[in-house]
């Protein structure tokens, strides 16, 4: 019964899939998500936070002030130490850090998106200036810039349709010489972004996954024995 029902559901659903799926992920203002994956001495940390928490608005940045706020936020998020303070004894070094703004409901192509991510916002910003000034720029930068524009435009249109939630995403790759020295995580994040109230922290390691809630009033997490 179930089997055939789900088959029916599948048939009923297929035209929608053909049109392009419409779906939005969960979005809660004040609450961000932080994922930490650990394998030996390697760590990958990802942050997902609503635009409202980071810059206080979620519409596409139009005014200069909004754009400046987004750029400033991305610059802050680009630095792991402004999100989490890791103990010096763990001897962690960050090998890659990326931060980007993602607007919910945008039908962007994922490959483009990745490219966009790889170059970082600061680069684009610079490219943009160079382009305007008609100073020396190579073809590559020019192409990127076009992509970027098209991308933004796309995001903007769809964001209005979808209600305009935006999310900041940052990811950090790091290596720690003594990961077992990480006993507490101090979330500098709350000091940096005053609208952020809570972070859902998930830690995945060989021992499985665990979740924690960190709130503004108690912005530290005891992770003794987890790394």
């Amino acid at each position: 019964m179930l089997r055939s029902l789900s088959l029916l559901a599948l048939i009923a659903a297929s035209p929608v899939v053909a049109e392009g799926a419409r779906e939005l992920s969960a979005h809660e203002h004040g609450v961000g998500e932080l994922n930490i994956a650990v394998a030996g001495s390697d760590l990958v940390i990802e942050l997902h936070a609503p635009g409202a928490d980071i810059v206080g608005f979620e519409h596409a940045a139009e005014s200069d002030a909004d754009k400046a706020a987004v750029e400033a936020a991305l610059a802050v998020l680009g630095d792991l130490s402004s999100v989490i303070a890791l103990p010096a004894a763990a001897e962690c070094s960050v090998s890659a850090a990326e931060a980007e703004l993602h607007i919910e409901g945008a039908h962007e192509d994922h490959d483009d998106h990745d490219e966009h991510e790889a170059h970082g916002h600061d680069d684009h910003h610079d490219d943009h200036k160079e382009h305007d000034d008609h100073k020396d720029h190579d073809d590559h930068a020019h192409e990127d810039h076009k992509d970027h524009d098209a991308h933004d435009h796309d995001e903007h249109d769809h964001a209005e349709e979808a209600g305009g939630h935006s999310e900041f995403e940052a990811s950090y790759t790091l290596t720690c010489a003594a990961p077992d020295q990480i006993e507490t995580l101090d979330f500098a994040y709350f000091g940096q972004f005053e609208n952020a109230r809570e972070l859902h922290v998930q830690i995945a390691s060989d021992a499985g996954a665990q979740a924690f809630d960190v709130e503004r009033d108690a912005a530290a997490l005891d992770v003794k024995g987890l790394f």
Partner: protein
Amino acid sequence: MIFRLALASLLARFVTVLMTVIAIAFSVALFLGVEKVRTGAKASFADTISGTDLIVGARSGSVQLLLYSVFRIGNATNNITWESYQDIIARPEVDWAVPISLGDSHRQFRVMGTTSDFFTHYKYRQGQGLALQGGALMDDLYDAVIGADVAAALGYKVDSPIVVAHGIASFTEHDDQPFRVSGILEKTGTPVDRTVIVSLAAIEAIHVDWKSGAKSGVVTPVEVIREMDLTPNAITAAMVGVKSPLQTFKLQRAINEYREEPLLAILPGVALQELWSIVGIAETALLAVSVMVVVTALIGLMAAQFASLNERRREMAILRAMGARPWVVFALLLLESVVIAFVGAVLGIALLYAGLIIAQPWIDAAYGLWLPIHAPGLQEGLVIGGVMLASAIVSAVPAVRAYRLSLADGMNVRI
């Protein structure tokens, strides 16, 4: 000196004191029992799945998916297509994947379709693997491996025939295609004990003659079915292992954002914690009720002490006449209460252990819940201390009254 006096006084009122002790003992046993069941249930849930990084199913809630796919509790989730499953396991992050297909039953037990990888990758209790107590893993299309509880409850041996029922109500049976028990698993204390495991192809095979949920009149001969392509169209869920924990979240996101079908990937540990946070409210309520029972028993103690004051006026007066100071009277009453509380709490713990030893196998058989028996530790010590302290506090009221009385009418008894 006071202590001896207190003991002697308690012994003199043996029956009343015994009743109070019993009330406290039962309340303490209840409180610790609730605590034991609570922690035991948690541990047993947490021990059910280990080593699986992600569980993938149709988009629902993480708790629902976890409960249905691992614990076979709660509402069925939608199925996911075999194509989506193939897409996911083809991803570079995936180390291994085990598909699970639920929906049929054998008597009161669930039938689960899976692959032989299930037996290598399913781990419980910190990485322990499944083992056979007899027979072999599925070899033929119509072979089934059964859990220890299934074998025990239905008296199956290796080679016993099994008829699988459609759905979970056994009014329609796939009696044209009987299975054979090829192996019996060791007891694990997990839902696997109560599961009949067959191959995915077998699940397809028993549904060959079932169109739109009803049995069609035509019976396809078993020989024809054996020749058919029995690749499933859909599965219920899949357990997935990643190559490196670093890729867990990446794979999870990729699955959650999979465009062709709404899928959900959950981290079992996190989903379990989510479940605890929901159950936590009920747990707190349960704990609050059992604390209330302890408080009630202590109030009973206070009442008994109050009641004894009148009949002990003469005793108090004699004490005072012998030269005892009023505070001695106060201390005597307090001490009596603390002794009652201590004896009650210790007796309560003894009761609990006796109960555990008797009920442990029964609870395990009936609810699949294994309550470990540990030597009394810090928690029990704290409970004894807490009850003694609380008894001192509540009995301070009658003690103060006794103190006052002994001052006022100590030498002037009007009976």
